[in-house]
């Protein structure tokens, strides 16, 4: 499996990364060499192996359903680029 430059530029767009032509070429090369390294895994029979969702052999600890957070909106909004009356303001999103 290998990626074309077109696919890499699509992935870059989805991640909102802007790549120069040069960077696109070198990134495509790098990604393909990572993929070919990973391809060695295909040689192993994994039929009886449960897919791993997490490298740690532990399970999720759960939290009691209790509200302990206080309203800290003032300090959060102090670092926001723009706020209105309690709203965060962002450039208009047209639907």
């Amino acid at each position, binding site marked *: 499996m290998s990626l074309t430059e077109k696919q890499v530029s699509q992935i870059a767009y989805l991640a909102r990364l802007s790549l120069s032509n040069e960077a696109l070429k070198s990134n495509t090369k790098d990604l393909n060499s990572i993929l070919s390294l990973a391809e060695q895994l295909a040689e192993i029979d994994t039929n009886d192996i449960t897919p791993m*969702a997490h490298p740690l052999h532990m399970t999720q600890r759960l939290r009691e359903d209790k509200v*302990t957070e206080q309203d800290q909106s003032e300090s959060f909004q102090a670092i926001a680029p723009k706020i*209105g009356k309690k709203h*965060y303001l962002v450039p208009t999103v047209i639907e």
Partner: protein
Amino acid sequence: MEWETVIGLEIHAQLSTKSKIFSAAATQYGAEPNTQACAVDLGLPGVLPVLNVEAVNKAIKFGLAINAHINQRNVFDRKNYFYPDLPKGYQISQLDWPIVGEGEIDITLGGDTKTIGITRAHLEEDAGKSIHDLYNDYTAVDLNRAGTPLLEIVSDPDMRSAKEAVAYAKKIHTLVQYIGICDGNMQEGSFRCDANVSIRPMGQEKLGTRAELKNINSFKFLERAINLEVERQQDILEEGGEVAQETRLYDAVKHETRSMRSKEEANDYRYFPDPDLLPVEISDELLDKIRAELPELPMEKKARFIAEFGLSEYDADVLTSQKYLADYFETLLQVNQSQAKLCANWVMGELSASLNKNQIEIQDSPVSAQQLSLLITRISDNTVSGKIAKDVFKAMWDGEGSADDIIKSKGLKQMTDTGEIEAIVDEIIANNAPQVEQFKSGNEKILGFFVGQAMQATQGKANPKLLNEMLRSKLG
């Protein structure tokens, strides 16, 4: 050409927890913007999501209620996309290992029962809210809703008409309220439906290309949006065109669906397991505990209403169609055990009519179950007739007091004194000789005339049974 409609629904039920799914901020609806969005909800650096145990328990509850397979090991994934109301740039959801696997639910439509398959139900966090019409040059973002726990319930493409889709959505709506995992409030967005709609030539097995309808916040709109979409697709296909796979927004005001292209181009979510969250393990003990705590489900309640109270299939169906309706009915029965049919008639008759007319939900009824219960007792102990009781009910609805207060203050107590009624009957018979002759010559219908006269003379208060008996014996 004849077309077959194929519909699958994705229902988002907001789980009624106090705190969010991955943070300890409150979930209460209607708070001042952004006052319930903590550092975790905002996706600030260095925060760690920790799963809410109640969200897990409620999802399990739903799974058990639809006889689904519960995945005792399930995993959270990141669904990546950019939108201002999604601060982290990804939504935590479940893809390959959802908490609830395959299940099913029966719907009844026009007397026919059909089983609808449920593909899966998974836990996820809600996004915030974008408000586009508050400012001219900006979109305003309220992140209070961000991180609210949702259960997304995905059906198989088993529905063949808008009506079936509505019946299924209502069934799920009733169920989540019965088992107490969601308040079902559609205006506040606690229960939302997206519909995947496609059509195919009748008899063809392969599914047509589907469109996903979003922004549907009532059952009425669900039916309308689907019918509208089916018509649109038929027009396209009959003109030789092709249906595009896309997301369409339903506009209830303009009564149209329109393409939402902005969401389409980002439709590559690059899911991967969330490294911040470990796999969730659910023990057999927990499953047994939740199973034991499950309340009576709508189908079970319906069967019991028929068996225990002798209600008809239809009555039992209507009374169990909403949790609050069933609760109301059962409260009436606590005092009026032997009057199940009378109670059912009142709930489905006067009460429902008044609620519908004023567009009030039963849980907000101005006449409480306890109040109506007393009125029903007064009917069964012959204090008032069924007809007068309707007037008493109206006064109760208008807040004029309890049934007893109203009966007393308006002097509506039924006349059961035989002597009193007899005097009135005698007078009417004496004054209406021609009608008496007609009755004696076999005109049974004229009896109604005498009843009417007597009721008029007593302002409707004569006990109808006594009156009828007396008239027959005197005239006969």
